[in-house]
């Protein structure tokens, strides 16, 4: 960020545009990451780290807190301390701030926070945009100011900061999550002069003077009694009465300074409109463009954009509307089930009813509609339908737009093919993968176009919810006029498909306009590319008269040493085909951008990229499009026909990128979704597969245990089961001291493997004559995909080993249990998922999992397909996500309920002991379920119990039937990351640890908030660089295990699969068997650590060997034998800590940026390691006194 001395135009997204202002106008900032507001905090932290000053030549102090509630609390203190403060949040984060928001408003504290409006988690979580969150705080007393575009977010941020000071009413400034927060658009930047002119210095001083200080003491936050509270509450009324005027005055001042004019309610349209739509947020832009079109055809329509929603100024609202209005439709981007209408609709209805008669002799009709929940598209076609509905003879009082509601019949029909005529800008869509750099290249393209051609430009990116093989779709627009089109490109002049396989998987050509250019990255040349297309694709190319070009970008990338990065190659091809900028100039600009990006990283890198650029133009070839479709091959459907109907019809449609077409009836109304759906989605991400050499294999099953995606499996089975095996199916005699006469196979699921190579890396079986060859080697996927697919199909048909003969605490045995967590969307090489998979293998058939929000809830429960599945008996983990902050409590509640059900079942058995059989009941009640055999026997008893239900009174049979399964021991798991366990959920976790319930808590510790992009948590170790710890974390990592041990009766283990897999398996088995609370802290390597996860297990080993991650088990049961409960499972550190840290970017960052600090922190970190080991060593070698003795 640079200080602006005059207004300058620049492209940026809504988050940066807002943070720019907030940062300059704040002295202190408290933060907590939450999508989609996280980038505002991150960029503020980066500015502060660079020493960027605010308007008063001061670097704001930034504090990352443990939760949004923490951030709000900190802000409250900062404000009462006299600072100008801000914070950024969204969704559940905003809800966590509500109690403090009441305080801030009640105490009349000038403050402005910025919110990227986002859905609230209801039947499901959604990270996307609507107004559910901000509507949930409309009662707090905060002023709510709404922006509808990137420029407005920038401008109204300033107006909000300016207006809060004289008004003393705190402000919540909001804009649409993703649609505005992540849209890149060009905007006029506010200069420091403008910002200064907007800020009332006297009001700032007055705020500072109100600070809590012993020099002028006061008391705040008193408790008031019935004699005082009510009157005092009403005493603030004049401040709210004055606020609309203050805001409008600030808007006038702003207009005089910038020429950009805003009002509390901005009306656009025909001055004599008969129909007006009232809306907040970005949907207003779409409505305005549509209204303009309608008015050009002689209709009389208008749009009223609400900016100041609270306090709602009724007179300003009425004055803004034309007197000619007959019908007002209020669009709410939220849903309030059970209410007589959505909030904005109700407000406006009541204002019109109460005060409208002063303006209209006959009150206009007011109807309401919902739109755009969770970033559902709102297009001109939908806006047309809204205006059309108002013209109908009997317009609906309540409707939805943008979906097909075949249950309640509320939805308006709209013409999906409608496009606003007279397209004013050039539009392009690009389909790519996150890993190929498509988005980055497009961001760069927008910059070049905006800067060099002085055009207005807009970019919006649609990202995947999968972390491995993530698909990105880039939507670009540019033109001579400002771009007000907050919806996806629907009529593209150019479509680029950067990944060949996406062409038949995604609706790539849907958005192409007639005559558009279509560029495909394909290994097939111009002469054969056509023949490799499906019937439907060929049909569309011909029907739309597309100009079809191909390029083999991967070949060029290989030849120029670019590996898999095809971004610049495709970018050059785009400029070569689109006549936007002279090609030479475009190339020169691209090269200059490359130099800027990579100069610090080495001249060779720059040169390689330049070489790729030079090779790109000659790589583009036109395909002669025949006049007729020649293909017979249909477009493949993403889900096999043998999948269950729901998966085929619903999941399949979502996978095909056509989820918007599904009607309401397709969805479960309570968000309860079937498990076991990921196996139907064959993603084929791996370029190479592990290939098994059965002769070399030592049958250790290590490859199986480390696989993050359960894509390589082991089985032993009787020889006769091999009948009918495919020709290439491999099998060898099973080596086991206990089991003889069986065969053994390691089999890869070729279409589910992501190619991480962890299995190959961990394989210890080397060819003694050629150490390069191991029992698992990598081989290209394509040639063996089909044969391995058949092999895997056959493998799955083989009988699973008998669970009762397997030991749960031995690595090899553990991997014969069927994984009930498979093919998740986790990152390639993920370090968390092997632990979850292992838990499901050992206990999944009786597990209930409470999962905190974070990576594990996203790869565990994000549609379209989910990885938790069932075994052959139909049993498997029951999985649920409540929230981020309450996961421990949620899991506790599940345990309490399970216990209670079990108790009720016991009570019924006792009550009906005689008819059911006294011995039989005694057997059930006293059953030993500590082994798989014991559990199997109890299941048999439960089955027999059901046979005997006829012996008890008829009216109680179904009740006991419902309770009977609880007689089989349930395994309750609370799973989450370190952000949850160490920070936001720590209070709940601590409470659960203190209760002694039989609960297993698995902390997947990546030492950062991985899901939101690597922000520091209290688990982040000393010296590691993370977001919000840009200069390296100074403090030590919290020792959560030691803390839990202090309760005395908690089983605690620290594990690292790559450090010692036998200890991992043993600890999990012990923890589950422990009849109290268990806490397992699992070291989880992560892409946020900054190294190739191919080496994840080696790095885990180094973590253990250096003492960075000591392995231990703290088992309170050992006290009974007079032993110290703590057992150290790893030896004293045998390597310096640097051997571990030197391999990770998170540590090397600091060395590269601040060597001296890195050295100092490394020294401190080593001391921490040494001291911690010494503490553990002493604990492990001495007995602790009995608890409560």
């Amino acid at each position, binding site marked *: 960020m640079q200080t602006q001395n005059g207004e300058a135009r620049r492209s940026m997204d809504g988050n940066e545009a807002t943070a720019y202002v907030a940062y300059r106008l704040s002295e202190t900032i408290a933060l907590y990451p939450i*999508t989609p507001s996280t*980038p505002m905090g*991150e*960029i503020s932290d*980066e*500015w502060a*780290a*660079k020493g960027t000053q605010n308007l008063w030549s001061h670097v704001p102090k930034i504090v990352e807190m443990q939760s949004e509630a923490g951030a709000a609390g900190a802000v409250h203190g900062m404000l009462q301390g006299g600072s100008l403060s801000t914070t950024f949040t969204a969704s559940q984060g905003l809800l966590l701030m509500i109690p403090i928001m009441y305080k801030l408003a009640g105490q009349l504290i000038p403050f402005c926070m910025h919110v990227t409006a986002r859905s609230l988690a209801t039947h499901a979580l959604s*990270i996307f945009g609507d107004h559910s969150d901000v509507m949930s705080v409309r009662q707090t007393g905060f002023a709510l100011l709404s922006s509808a575009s990137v420029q407005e977010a920038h401008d109204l941020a300033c107006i909000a900061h300016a207006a809060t000071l004289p008004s003393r009413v705190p402000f919540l400034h909001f804009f649409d999550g*993703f649609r505005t927060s*992540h849209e890149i658009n060009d905007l006029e930047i506010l200069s420091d002069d403008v910002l200064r002119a907007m800020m009332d210095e006297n009001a700032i001083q007055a705020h500072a003077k109100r600070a809590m200080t012993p020099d002028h003491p006061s008391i705040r936050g008193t408790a008031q009694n019935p004699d005082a509270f009510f009157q005092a509450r009403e005493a603030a009324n004049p401040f709210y009465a004055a606020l609309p005027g203050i805001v409008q005055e600030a808007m006038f001042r702003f207009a005089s300074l910038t020429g950009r004019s805003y009002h509390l309610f901005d009306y656009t349209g025909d001055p004599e409109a008969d129909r007006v739509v009232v809306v907040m947020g970005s949907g207003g832009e779409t409505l305005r463009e549509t209204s303009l079109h309608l008015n050009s055809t002689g209709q009389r329509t208008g749009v009223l954009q609400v900016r100041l929603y609270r306090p709602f100024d009724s007179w300003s609202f009425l004055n803004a509307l034309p007197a000619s209005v007959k019908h007002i439709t209020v669009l709410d981007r939220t849903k309030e089930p059970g209410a007589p209408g959505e909030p904005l609709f109700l407000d406006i209805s009541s204002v019109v009813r109460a005060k409208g008669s002063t303006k209209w002799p006959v009150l206009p009709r007011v109807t309401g509609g919902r739109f755009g929940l969770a970033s559902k598209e709102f297009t001109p076609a939908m806006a047309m339908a809204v205006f059309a509905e108002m013209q109908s003879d009997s317009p609906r009082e309540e409707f939805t737009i943008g979906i097909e509601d075949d249950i309640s019949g509320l939805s308006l029909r709209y013409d999906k093919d409608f496009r606003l005529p007279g397209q004013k800008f050039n539009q392009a869509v690009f389909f790519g993968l*996150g*890993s190929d*750099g*498509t*988005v*980055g290249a497009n961001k760069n393209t927008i910059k070049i176009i905006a800067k060099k051609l002085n055009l207005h430009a807009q970019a919006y990116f649609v*990202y*995947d*919810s*999968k972390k491995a093989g*993530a698909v*990105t779709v880039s939507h670009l627009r540019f033109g001579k006029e400002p771009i007000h089109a907050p919806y996806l490109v629907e009529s593209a002049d150019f479509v680029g498909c950067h990944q060949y396989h996406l062409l038949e998987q995604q609706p790539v050509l849907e958005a192409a306009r007639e005559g558009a250019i279509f560029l495909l990255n394909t290994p097939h040349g111009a002469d054969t590319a056509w023949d490799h297309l499906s019937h439907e694709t060929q049909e569309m190319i011909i029907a739309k008269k597309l100009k079809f070009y191909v390029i083999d970008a991967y070949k060029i990338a290989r030849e120029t040493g670019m*590996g*898999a*990065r095809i971004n610049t190659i495709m970018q050059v091809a785009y400029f070569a085909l689109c006549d936007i900028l002279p090609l030479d100039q475009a190339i020169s600009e691209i090269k200059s951008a490359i130099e800027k990006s990579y*100069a*610090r*990283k*080495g*001249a*060779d*890198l*720059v*040169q390689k990229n330049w070489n790729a650029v030079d090779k790109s133009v000659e790589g583009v070839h036109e395909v002669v499009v025949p006049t007729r479709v020649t293909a017979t091959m249909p477009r493949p459907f993403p889900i096999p026909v043998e999948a269950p109907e729901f998966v085929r019809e619903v999941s399949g449609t979502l996978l095909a990128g056509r989820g918007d077409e599904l009607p309401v009836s397709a969805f479960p109304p309570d968000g309860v979704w079937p498990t076991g759906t990921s196996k139907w989605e064959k993603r084929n991400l791996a370029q190479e597969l592990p290939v098994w050499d059965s002769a070399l294999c030592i049958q250790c099953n290590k490859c199986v245990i480390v696989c993050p995606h359960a894509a390589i499996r082991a089985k032993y089975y009787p020889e006769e089961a091999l009948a009918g095996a495919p020709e290439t199916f491999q099998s060898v005699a099973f080596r086991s001291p206990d089991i003889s006469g069986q065969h053994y196979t390691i089999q890869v699921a070729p279409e589910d493997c992501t190619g991480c190579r962890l299995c190959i890396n961990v394989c210890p079986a*080397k060819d*003694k004559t050629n*150490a390069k060859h191991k029992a698992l080697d990598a081989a290209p996927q394509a040639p063996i995909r089909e044969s391995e697919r058949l092999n895997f199909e056959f493998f799955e048909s083989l009988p699973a080993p008998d669970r009762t003969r397997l030991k749960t605490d031995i690595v090899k045995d553990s991997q014969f249990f069927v994984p009930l967590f498979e093919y998740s969307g986790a*990152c390639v090489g993920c370090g968390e998922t092997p632990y979850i998979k292992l838990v499901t293998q050992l206990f999944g058939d009786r597990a209930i999992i409470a999962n905190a929000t974070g990576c594990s809830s996203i790869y565990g429960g994000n549609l379209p397909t989910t990885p938790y599945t069932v075994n052959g008996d139909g049993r498997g983990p029951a999985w649920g996500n409540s929230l981020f902050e309450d996961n421990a409590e949620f899991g506790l509640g599940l345990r309490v309920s399970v216990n209670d059900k079990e108790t009720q079942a016991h009570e019924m058995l006792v009550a009906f002991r005689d008819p059911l059989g006294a011995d039989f009941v005694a057997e059930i009640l006293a059953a030993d379920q500590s082994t798989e055999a014991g559990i199997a026997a109890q299941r048999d008893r439960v089955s027999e119990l059901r046979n005997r239900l006829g012996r008890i009174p008829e009216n109680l049979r179904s009740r006991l039937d419902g309770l009977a399964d609880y007689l089989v021991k349930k395994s309750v798991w609370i799973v989450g990351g370190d952000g949850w366990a160490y920070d936001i959920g720590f209070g709940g976790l601590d409470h659960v640890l203190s209760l002694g319930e039989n609960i297993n808590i698995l902390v997947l510790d990546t030492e950062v908030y*991985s899901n*939101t*992009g*690597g922000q520091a948590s209290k688990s982040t170790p000393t010296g590691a*660089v*993370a*977001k919000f710890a*840009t200069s390296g974390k100074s403090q030590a990592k919290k020792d959560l295990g030691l803390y839990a041990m202090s309760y005395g009766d908690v089983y605690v283990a620290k594990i690292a699969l790559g450090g010692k897999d036998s200890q991992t398996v043993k600890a999990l088995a012990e923890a589950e068997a422990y009849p109290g609370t268990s806490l397992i802290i699992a070291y989880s390597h992560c*892409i*946020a650590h*900054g*190294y*190739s996860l191919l080496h994840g297990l080696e790095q885990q080993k180094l973590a253990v060997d250096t003492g960075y991650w000591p392995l231990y088990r703290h088992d309170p049961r050992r006290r009974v034998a007079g032993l110290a409960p703590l057992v150290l499972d790893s030896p004293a550190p045998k390597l310096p800590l640097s051997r571990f840290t030197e391999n990770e*970017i998170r540590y*090397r*960052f*600091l060395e*590269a*940026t601040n*060597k001296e600090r890195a*050295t100092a922190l490394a020294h401190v970190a080593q001391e921490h390691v040494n001291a911690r080991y010494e503490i553990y060593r002493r604990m492990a070698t001495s007995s602790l006194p009995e608890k409560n003795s």
Partner: protein
Amino acid sequence: MKLTTNYLGLELKSPFVVGASPLGDDPDMAKRLEDCGASALVMHSLFEEQLTSESAALTALTESIEESYAEALSYFPESAEYALGPEDYLDHISRLKKRVSIPVIASLNGRTPGGWIGHAKLMEEAGADAIELNIYDVPTDQEESGAELEARVMEVISGVRGKVKIPFAVKLSPFYSSLPNLAKNIHLAGANGLVLFNRFYQPDLDIEDLNVEPKLFLSTSSELLLRLRWMAILHGKSPLSLALSGGVHKVHDAVKGVMAGADVLQIVSLILRHGPQSLETLIKDFTAWMQEHDYKDVAEMRGCLSHRNSPDPGAFERANYLRVLQLWKV
């Protein structure tokens, strides 16, 4: 008595230079070494691989995970943009220059002509007094001849000469077919000195895990003999400054090095084993030895037992081999 010597055109207070190692990483340690008598300090090497392939790999790694997933468009703070480039190294040159008054020699390690050579210029701009170009090449390609390999060496040297005005020495391995000829060509290509020899990270074999493990052992006095031979052969034949690197642990090692023709002796393992004080002791012992043997200055001693000046030149050649074998027989 004068200990001064000239190396690469730099006037040094003694022949005792701290060789390329992590010893220069800490400015305080550098200062201590200066106080203990070090006459110059060679920094640890900036590696070609660090500047090219590793940087490219890490860039690709971080880029490939960015802009993929809506909740995490990146995973590292932007302001801490990771650069494996030479910034820190270059900054460190300045830090050392501020802390010590002895010459600071930057070290660049590579084997192929390429963009990384340009970093020599950056080292010069950052204040390095000289550069040590460590050409660390292990030929594995059976299609590549010795001549081709030497030609590549010359290309790298010419490349560096074209970039910098400050002097630079070339550090070689002992495995070249004709070192005198190579030295001549190295001089013609523009280098100012030779450092004999670099010590490879020797691959060791793990016979249990069937792995190859790179290892580096600290040197011992036994490594001195190889260096003495080539030092003696090159002294006087080439105008290049000569530095002996590897095997100087005791005063007699140092005396032998100078007598064989070394302008400077690079000390590393001794200091790593016994601390900076050991350098001071070595220099003190060396001075005492000179006094005892009535040498007025180092120049008098330098090369007195070189191939050219030796009473028995054959001892440095093949005859030496025969004699040693004969002795062994006895």
